């Protein structure tokens, strides 16, 4: 592009000694350090940078901050691209690449503009009224149009490659969090620091000062920025103060938990230095909060108000004062309040032709005199009634205006290439509403202000309370800082500093104008846009009222008003006020839609921080984990544990490995890492009382050195865990649980002990990780154990099944349990975890074959032992799985009463059965649904499902466990199991124990 001809002043935010080249839509531009992408572009004039969502009319930069509806851009490319950024919030850096979005083929020639000509056919909510043809299978039309609607909508594109940058989280605590570093925020922070508080001051802008950066305000007779500098120095010297600029406070939650996103490595452009995060998510717990978030200017609406070159009046002042940019030569400012006069004076003093149309009958004489003295033409009682032009403003019209905004005279044509409109101020009270508090309407300021939230520890100060004068902001800020410090418990006597601002002596309240309706003959017709991003016009609001979508929420959802990325920051209040005019309701009665976090959009990565990839979730490793990894183990995730599923020898398939491991245990001796099983140490005199209540069977008779299996149910009578509990001493037991339920069972015991039976003397402590557990199982297990240097008598008489012995194994104190899930002679050796690896290696060297969880599941299934979570799913009772024997008739226990209920007591519930496929070589599908008639029409009468199904090397046949309706009484029947390809497998119902029915091997 040719030179930046609109850079006419020296902006206080930019450094002219550091020019920065950047690319926009493929063309090269130059800006300065301190510029935003928006200010740098405006230096070349107000040309189109985006397109409206629906009519795709050209749109220019409209504001100077986070409330920007138009200037959405796609930043950078490839893995680092970011869609939908606001040019007004992108800090300029060297070699920045940005492109416009949502236009095809180009921003200056967009074919989707056809929608603007078809607009009579596209009123608000048109899509609810059409695309409905296509007969019974309706939606055929809709499917056809849906893909084109999706392509037209959507603005930017998602990145195509994973994100190379880092993100961090940081928790922080403070007495007082001040949100917003404008005059009010700085005064509040200074007051809180003087009271001895830990203070965090956060502001979304790169530079500190807020509105004071916009022009030549004065505090205590000196330039305001000197006061800002002095205040910042005192803050930096204080011990516990953190000043966070470039940090957007995005959400405010219960008990003043606040989230804020700081741009760290992002500031001088990608790539961020390798260790630095691109963004840091602050998670702040503040005792008290000062809300000094200021206010957003709002426009009033008139036909054709979306032409590039129409901006908010205050934005023009920020671009002039902050960045030295005025994107026009002839300026027309339309205002309803005093704030535009300072802008008019600044622009006129810079040599631009300025006309100020003030809609009020009697604006403050001092202001009118001050601006006319420097050459501004003031049109009292006039408002902008239209703008001419399509890609650029090339003229406007002003009309005399009545109190309610109705036009009272023929329009007067005005020469203008830059239009500023100032309709009033909306306090940025979003954060105060995040905790559910509804804002209240302030009639004199014609805006919604936060309700009094000091009870929640939130103190509002400055423009967010609706005040405009600088002196008020400074006073309120100081007062809020002190009040917050006191509420945070920091009481210190401090002197109130003298701070005066240069405010208007004779202020006049604003005039409430929402839209200028230009139906005068000769007046320029055209769409008057309320929501510039979602293309919602005044006609759309009238249509919503006409069709009875009259509540403020129906208005929003029917017209999509305020549902864009700016969340209606400049449009919501105008929209609801215009609807109020149609339905004779004041804004107070209309109310607002709910303000929701985040205040402005946050990248997903900032929420995730470093919880990604390898650190996404903890990995729990057993003491023998390194050995499994080094010896061909395939792992499965069991909760957070990594458990060896099977050990593949080189060239072995999974099936072959499992078969080898099963045969090793059945014929020789296998070892398994069982360290993940929950182990709970119980101490105290009342353990038996506890066990009798949580397990279904009785525990009074368990002798020291013995162990017993138990089923644990919830109060609805359904199984939720099982395991063996052994008695080590008079008042010392150890309970084992399934791996997945280790924490759940300990929590279950603690809940009952603490909340229901506090006088029961039992202490429960998790020792799961204190012991490494190795299961040694198989017919030669005893020989292997005997070969170890140990003082334990391994003979069957001295150490029978279901008992526990303690002693030394290879010089280390150990507890050994004779319990068997595989059905073979089996020892579970527990020794201090630090020795787990050494024992495992010693057993491998002595010829034991490691086996994984899959082999264990084949072994236990052959024995008909249930697996909680596979045979049971929270709807299965002990009786259903044939363990009525374990349910005590006499004592009460948790869940017992539920067995007497009608549905739980009925005899034809689903029972555990065994299934043998008629064709021996089939392995029945797990989860297969069982039916009697495989050819019936769907929905079919399904009688149960296959819970576990494997190939048994011992039976040389597939076999399965299943839950079958009335299964106990159907032994010998043939049933069908549906398969996904339409036909079915046949199987015979048999007893669920397939191998060693007499349990001789286990007891051998």
């Amino acid at each position, binding site marked *: 592009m040719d030179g930046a001809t609109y850079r006419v002043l020296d902006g206080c935010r930019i450094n002219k000694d550091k020019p920065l080249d950047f690319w926009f839509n493929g063309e090269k531009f130059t800006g300065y350090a301190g510029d935003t992408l928006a200010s740098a572009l405006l230096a070349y004039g107000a040309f189109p940078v985006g397109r409206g969502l629906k009519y795709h009319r050209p749109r220019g930069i409209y504001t100077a901050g986070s409330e920007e509806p138009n200037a959405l851009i796609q930043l950078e490319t490839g893995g680092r691209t970011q869609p939908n950024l606001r040019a007004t919030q992108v800090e300029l850096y060297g070699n920045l690449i940005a492109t416009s979005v949502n236009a095809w083929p180009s921003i200056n020639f967009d074919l989707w503009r056809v929608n603007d000509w078809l607009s009579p056919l596209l009123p608000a909510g048109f899509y609810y009224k059409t695309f409905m043809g296509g007969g019974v299978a309706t939606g055929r039309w809709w499917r056809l149009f849906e893909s084109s609607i999706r392509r037209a909508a959507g603005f930017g594109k998602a990145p195509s490659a994973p994100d190379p940058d880092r993100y961090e989280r940081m928790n922080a605590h403070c007495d007082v969090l001040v949100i917003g570093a404008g005059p009010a925020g700085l005064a509040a922070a200074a007051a809180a620091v003087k009271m001895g508080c830990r203070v965090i001051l956060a502001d979304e802008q790169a530079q500190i000062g807020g509105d004071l950066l916009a022009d030549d305000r004065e505090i205590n007779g000196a330039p305001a920025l000197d006061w800002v500098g002095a205040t910042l120095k005192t803050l930096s010297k204080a011990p516990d103060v953190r000043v966070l600029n470039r940090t957007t406070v995005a959400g405010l939650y*219960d008990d003043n938990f606040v989230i804020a996103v700081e741009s760290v490595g992002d500031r001088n452009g990608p790539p961020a230095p390798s260790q630095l995060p691109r963004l840091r998510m602050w998670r702040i717990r503040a005792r008290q909060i000062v809300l000094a978030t200021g206010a957003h200017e709002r426009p009033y609406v008139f036909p054709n108000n979306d032409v590039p070159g129409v901006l908010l009046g205050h934005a023009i002042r920020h671009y002039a004062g902050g960045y030295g940019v005025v994107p026009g030569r002839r300026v027309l400012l339309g205002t309803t309040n005093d704030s535009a006069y300072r802008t008019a004076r600044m622009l006129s003093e810079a040599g631009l032709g300025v006309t100020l149309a003030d809609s009020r009958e009697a604006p403050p004489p001092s202001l009118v005199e001050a601006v006319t003295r420097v050459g501004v033409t003031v049109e009292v009682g006039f408002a902008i009634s239209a703008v001419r032009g399509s890609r650029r403003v090339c003229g406007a019209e002003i009309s005399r205006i009545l109190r309610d905004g109705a036009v009272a005279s023929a329009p007067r044509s005005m020469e203008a290439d830059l239009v500023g409109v100032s309709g009033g101020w909306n306090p940025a009270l979003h954060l105060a509403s995040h905790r559910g508090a509804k804002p209240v309407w302030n009639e004199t300021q014609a805006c919604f202000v936060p309700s009094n939230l000091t009870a929640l520890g939130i103190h509002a100060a400055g423009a967010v309370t609706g005040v405009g004068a600088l002196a008020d902001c400074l006073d309120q800020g100081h007062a809020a800082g002190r009040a917050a410090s006191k509420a945070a418990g920091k009481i210190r006597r401090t002197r109130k500093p003298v701070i005066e601002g240069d405010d208007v002596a004779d202020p006049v309240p604003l005039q409430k104008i929402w839209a200028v309706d230009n139906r005068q003959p000769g007046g320029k017709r055209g769409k008057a846009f309320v929501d510039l991003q979602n293309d919602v016009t005044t006609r759309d609001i009238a249509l919503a009222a006409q069709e009875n979508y009259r509540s403020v929420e129906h208005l929003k959802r029917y017209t999509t008003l305020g549902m864009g990325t700016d969340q209606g920051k400049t449009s919501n209040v105008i929209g609801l006020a215009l609807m109020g005019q149609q339905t004779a309701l004041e804004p107070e009665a209309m109310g607002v839609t709910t303000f929701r976090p985040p205040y402005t959009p946050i990248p997903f990565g900032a929420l995730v921080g470093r919880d990604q990839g390898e650190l996404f979730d903890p990995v729990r490793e057993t003491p023998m984990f390194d050995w499994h990894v080094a010896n061909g183990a395939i792992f499965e995730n069991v909760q957070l544990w990594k458990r060896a599923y099977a050990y593949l020898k080189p060239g072995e398939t999974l099936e072959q490995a499992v078969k080898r491991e099963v045969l090793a245990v059945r014929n020789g001796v296998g070892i398994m890492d069982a360290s993940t099983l929950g182990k709970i140490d119980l101490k105290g005199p009342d353990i038996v009382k506890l066990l009798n209540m949580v397990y279904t069977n009785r525990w009074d008779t368990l002798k020291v050195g013995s162990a017993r299996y138990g089923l644990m149910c919830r109060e609805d009578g359904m199984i939720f865990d099982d395991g063996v509990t052994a008695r080590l001493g008079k008042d010392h037991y150890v309970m084992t649980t399934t791996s997945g339920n280790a924490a759940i069972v300990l929590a279950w015991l*603690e809940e009952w002990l*603490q909340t229901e039976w*506090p006088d029961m003397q039992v202490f429960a402590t998790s020792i799961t990780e204190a012991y490494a557990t190795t299961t040694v199982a198989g017919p030669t297990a005893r020989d292997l154990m005997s070969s170890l240097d140990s003082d334990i008598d391994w003979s069957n008489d001295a150490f029978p099944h279901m008992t526990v012995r303690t002693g030394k194994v290879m010089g280390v104190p150990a507890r050994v349990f004779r319990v068997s899930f595989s059905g073979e002679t089996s020892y579970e050796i527990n020794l201090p975890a630090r020795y787990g690896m050494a024992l495992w290696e010693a057993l491998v060297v002595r010829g034991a074959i490691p086996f994984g969880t899959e082999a264990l599941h084949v072994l236990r299934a052959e024995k008909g032992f249930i697996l909680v979570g596979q045979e049971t799913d929270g709807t299965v009772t002990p009786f259903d799985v044939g363990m009525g024997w374990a349910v005590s008739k006499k004592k*009460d226990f948790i869940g017992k009463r539920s067995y007497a209920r009608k549905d739980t007591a009925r005899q034809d519930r689903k029972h555990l059965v065994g299934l043998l496929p008629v064709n021996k070589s089939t392995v029945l599908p797990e989860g297969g649904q069982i039916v009697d008639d495989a050819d019936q029409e769907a929905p079919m009468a399904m009688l149960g499902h296959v819970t576990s199904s494997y190939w048994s090397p011992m039976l040389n046949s597939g076999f399965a466990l299943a839950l079958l309706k009335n299964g106990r009484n159907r032994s010998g029947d043939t049933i069908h199991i549906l398969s996904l390809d339409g036909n079915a497998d046949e199987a015979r119902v048999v007893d669920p124990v397939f191998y060693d029915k007499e349990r001789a091997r286990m007891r051998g």
Partner: protein
Amino acid sequence: MLLIQCPYCGPRDESEFDYGGEADIVRPKNPEKLSDAEWADYVFFRTNTKGRFKERWVHTHGCGRWFKIVRNTTTHEHGDVTVFGGVEPEAE
């Protein structure tokens, strides 16, 4: 995000606790005397109050103790921490 006042550890972030639902539901002394409806009332039916609601929390990742608070289920304001029997909170 609640800041919960554990009676033993002081104020801690909500993420350290697990929720225990409605408080003061006492297990019936002899369940076998109850009708199915009375048993269901204990196991399944809840008050689910809109407003001030007495509920149980457990400081799972802290001291492991159960305790009760009263929380307003519409505004989330909370306080009135009370403990279960058996162990008294010491003065911090």
